[in-house]
């Protein structure tokens, strides 16, 4: 065998081995452990009232946070790439803040601002709105940690497509709105799609920030990840695996949806 061939096979083995050990084995074992006690048991443990509530809470939080961040993310990317404003580097750095700050810190800072003794706590309480230890806090925490994904996916695509197509549309009589809907949006759609998938995965899986602001009240503010943690701590391993498998399933459905809607051949 030539040394080139040896190197090539060696590199492939390392790459695949790495993926296998870190990705396939753990996920595989979770799935195996989940179904080891039998389908009936799995079904029972993911249909308890607490589990059903956790499932729907997770879905609701995601359904609020992801569309909001998608709209704001597209807007922020447009400002960053096309805008003629001062302080762009600052905005650019601020958008990455949720990546840089630990989710626990995010959770604590939300408590400091919106908690009963926080800055807005008094105002909110007198208005009858509870943010911390309630779902609005979970939504806020999720929005915070998923903020950068859409911006970071869309901005480079916007930069790459440039603004010539938009200028061409303007010379052909298109208004700003028409140009955005017919030219810009289709050009960045895959950037948006990836941003949405990443945001969704992160929103479903967020633990740290949500754990701090939710108060982990079973059947009220317990999301799926919190449920997994609680079951694990209570030595209900089978229940924890079942809930984990459910989480993994939601994530995979999102990825699958992207694969299905993306046409096989891109005309670009």
């Amino acid at each position, binding site marked *: 065998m030539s040394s080139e061939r040896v190197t090539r096979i060696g590199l492939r083995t390392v790459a695949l081995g790495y993926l296998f050990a870190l990705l396939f084995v753990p996920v595989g074992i979770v799935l195996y452990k989940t179904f080891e006690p039998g389908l009936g048991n799995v079904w029972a443990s993911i249909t308890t009232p607490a589990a059903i509530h956790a499932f729907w809470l997770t879905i609701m939080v995601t359904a609020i946070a992801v569309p909001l961040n998608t709209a704001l993310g597209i807007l922020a990317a447009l400002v960053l790439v096309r805008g003629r404003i001062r302080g762009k580097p600052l905005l650019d750095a601020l958008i990455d803040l949720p990546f840089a700050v630990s989710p626990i810190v995010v959770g604590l800072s939300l408590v400091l601002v919106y908690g009963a003794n926080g800055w807005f706590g008094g105002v909110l309480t007198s208005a009858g709105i509870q943010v911390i230890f309630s779902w609005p806090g979970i939504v806020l925490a999720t929005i915070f940690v998923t903020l950068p994904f859409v911006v970071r996916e869309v901005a480079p695509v916007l930069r790459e497509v440039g603004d010539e197509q938009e200028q061409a549309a303007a010379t052909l*009589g298109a208004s700003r709105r028409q140009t955005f809907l*017919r030219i810009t949006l289709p050009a960045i759609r895959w950037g948006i799609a990836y941003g949405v998938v990443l945001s969704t995965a992160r929103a479903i899986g967020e633990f740290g920030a949500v754990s701090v602001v939710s108060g982990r009240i079973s059947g009220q503010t317990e999301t799926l990840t919190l449920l997994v943690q609680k079951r694990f701590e209570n030595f209900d391993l089978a229940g924890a695996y079942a809930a984990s498998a459910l989480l993994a399933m939601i994530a995979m459905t999102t990825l699958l949806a992207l694969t299905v809607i993306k046409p096989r051949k891109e005309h670009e």
Partner: protein
Amino acid sequence: MISVTGVTKRFGAFTALNDVSLEVPEGSLSALLGPSGSGKSTLLRIIAGLDTGDRGQVLIGGVDQTLVPARKREIGFVFQHYAAFKHMSVRENVAFGLKIRKRPKKEIASRVDELLGIVGLSGYQDRYPSQLSGGQRQRMALARALAVEPRVLLLDEPFGALDANVRAELRRWLRKLHEEVPVTTVIVTHDQEEAMDIADRVAVMSHGTIEQVGPPRELYEQPTSDFVMGFLGPVTELGGHLVRPHDLHLSVDAREGAAEAMVARVTHLGFEVRVDLVLADGGAIGAQVTRGEAEALELREGDVVWVGPDRGAVQLPAAAGADELPLSA
């Protein structure tokens, strides 16, 4: 007709256009010619409304357009890099402007077919820009611009990204198209041959100002500045005057107005021969003669000949800063 009056445009400390005025006659095919940074593209973009001047006025068909946005100027614009709508088929690209104008579907379909016929892309309706060659993409972009029946057609280095042979072909094709569809057209180019070949009027630009405007032949034969003379063709300096190398006459015998020079190098370039000469004062000069002339003179390196301008040669007094001349091809 397009008329531009007193347009100035600055980008920070750089003056892209300095008090530029220009008239483009109705139905003409005019070229804005100049080196990069001369302001020609900026002027075109200001006419289109894609950029706005700091000062000055733009009129199209006698109506002030200075404050009118690009989308309401009824212009067609063609970009150097095509600006094709990548996610749309050829048909959708060409139909874009008509759809925006909410024309009936039937009318759009027949107009698109007609235009694709004109630009030679019939049968390509369902292709995507990525499946077209550069030349085809640019013809699609032209059809797209013409679809809305613009009052003026503006082309910004439209053939700049294409191969030399495709460029020459499209140039002839555009000239022909202009005869069939005589819409007032302005083309920006840095290629003097392209401008002379295609346009019936050329405006030569340099450092944000227009140096000279006129028919190509007039510019070549009666340049008013050494810049224009140098930009439209090669020049060489003899006796304090700028002259074109092909306007120089070589002879063995002394002649009035001619200077003595030694042949430094003879280069055969097919039908023409370039002769590099060294004058008595040490100055270098290049002459261009036909093969026949070179053979008749039996030119060899080291020969001494007399070199002087032909009768009727274009001559300009050399300016002090003549070494800044853009000696093109």
